[in-house]
């Protein structure tokens, strides 16, 4: 049953090299190839990139500061003011452009906060299991059953409406979903053979949790956090619409709040910021879908 011993020649090594080492394009290239198959996701990515560029280069795009009174009130969209002016004679266009800063900042930072907390708690809970797991999951459930927006209202009202408070509040309220997701991933990944192998090689728990399991759990975490950016932007817009946004920074929600009294007189005051919110969140959701397809290629094979 065993082949007779024979010394391996260099030809054999060559052959082994050819058979064994299949060269493939770089992972990023593979990833992009899968991502771009989803047309809508590419459109979403373009939208998101567009808004990111707008927020970064806001001062170069518009000359008027968003809060400064530049013209008469209620000028409809025209060549000079492409999105018209509002009830105080402020340029709506520059408001929309600068508003992207707050929305994206809040969206991304809140998603980062919640992903960080959720991953930490989910990883610990799923990996450790047992009593600590059930304790952490009960805490998670407490956060899940509280109506999110209502809680955000109360917390912002209590602690004041600075951008960082809003970010913190949204982050604190949206980690449970991530935690549950990460926990589920860890529950199944910790039973995999390579974790057994890592344990048999004498690796510590921390190393196993963060450097062995975490990279395997990343795809769903990334998809989830991309979707949370969108929902963070919506919550922020909602808070600002109710007058609980950061008063020192212009945001799309604030503009909507301002516009509601003049809906019949000046449609442009509400439409343009509303459109901006719609497009950004749509773009982010499309990107999330695309990431899901590209990161979990097996799920796509319908």
């Amino acid at each position: 049953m065993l082949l007779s011993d024979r010394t391996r020649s260099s030809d054999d090594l060559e052959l082994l090299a050819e058979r064994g080492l299949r060269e493939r394009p770089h992972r990023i290239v593979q990833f992009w190839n899968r991502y771009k198959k989803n047309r809508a996701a590419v459109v979403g990515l373009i939208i998101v990139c567009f808004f990111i560029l707008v927020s970064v280069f806001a001062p170069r795009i518009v000359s008027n500061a968003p809060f400064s009174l530049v013209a008469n009130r209620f000028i409809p969209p025209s060549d000079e003011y492409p999105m018209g002016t509002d009830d105080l004679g402020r340029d709506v266009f520059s408001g929309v452009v600068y508003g992207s800063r707050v929305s994206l900042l809040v969206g991304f930072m809140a998603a980062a906060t919640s992903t960080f907390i959720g991953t930490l708690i989910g990883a610990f809970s799923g990996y450790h299991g047992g009593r600590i797991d059930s304790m952490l999951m009960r805490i998670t459930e407490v956060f899940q059953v509280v109506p999110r927006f209502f809680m955000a209202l109360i917390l912002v009202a209590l602690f004041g409406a600075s951008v960082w408070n809003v970010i913190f509040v949204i982050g604190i309220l949206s980690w449970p979903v991530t935690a549950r997701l990460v926990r589920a991933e860890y529950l199944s990944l910790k039973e995999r053979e390579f974790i057994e192998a890592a344990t048999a090689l004498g690796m510590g728990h921390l190393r196993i949790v963060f450097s062995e399991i975490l990279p395997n759990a990343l795809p769903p975490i990334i998809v989830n956090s991309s979707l949370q950016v969108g929902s963070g932007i919506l919550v922020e817009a909602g808070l600002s619409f109710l007058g609980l946004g950061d008063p020192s920074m212009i945001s799309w929600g604030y503009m909507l709040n301002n516009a509601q009294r003049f809906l019949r007189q000046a449609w442009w005051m509400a439409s343009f910021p509303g459109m901006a919110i719609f497009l950004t969140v749509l773009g982010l959701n499309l990107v999330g879908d695309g990431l899901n397809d590209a990161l979990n290629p097996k799920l796509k094979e319908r």
Partner: protein
Amino acid sequence: MTSHLLKIEELKTYFFTSEGIVKAVDDVSLHIDANEAVGLVGESGCGKTMTAFSIMRLVPSPPGRIVQGRILLRGKDLLQFSKDEMREIRGREIGMVFQDPMTYLNPVMRISEQMTEVLVEHQRVSGLQAKQRAIEMLERMQIPSPDKVVNYYPYQLSGGMRQRVLIAMAMSCEPSLLIMDEPTTALDATVQAQILRLIRRLRKDFGSSILMITHDLGIIAEICDRVCVMYAGKIIETADVYGIFQRPKHPYTIGLLSSILRIDKYKEVLPTIDGVVPDLMNPPSGCRFHPRCPNVMSVCCERPPPSFVVEPSHCVNCWLYESEKE
């Protein structure tokens, strides 16, 4: 007391399931000397792997638990070690190679990352040194162009290459004992031969002891000095390789050896051992092999046979050899 590298004494590892207690390892004693290769053979489910997992203290718990016994590594009982002390032993003193190279490598980490992690964990070397060492180890595993292979992901490697990488990882801290749990079962025959050749060479180079767990007597013949035959959670026969192959004593061993296909002897019908592996939840009384044994006697059903020494370094647990007892 001779100083064995590893000595297992009356080890019992049980699984406490809702249906009852499964005695996966029941009263197993064996020893491994320095630079010795010991084979542990038996059919599936006879407790070979659990014996290995007990040594590493990796028995899935719950439901598994080591209920009795001592596992002495250089005279120190591993079962008394704390979890942290045990972690120091794993990888550094005892390395383990698993059956299926496809699933035992982390799919999202480069080979270099996986290999250097072990070294950084145990030897506190810098990342660059560790990578150098990883390349060196791969070279010793006869992997072609190791400087390229370290940067690959597991999916880019063939089965044989992955098994080499796993062996390289297990050997990277030069453990004094290497446990190999069916290291070639998942590989095809040509690759198997290559891996076995590699293991023999490594034994010479590193001077590690090997505990080779397998159901393949051919591998035993290739690698091992001494063999323990396991049946239903117990070791039933221990001898050196020549003793087992030329003068098997236990009816089970005899049956096992006669059921091997041989290229040099034509057999009309391949002999088999009648019956099935006993249920470890309710093992047969007395000798656990008695329901399948061709030479069964009345005493076999009543009392489990102790170990009889039939030749120097050849012990067998079977009543047939009672008269030869010292």
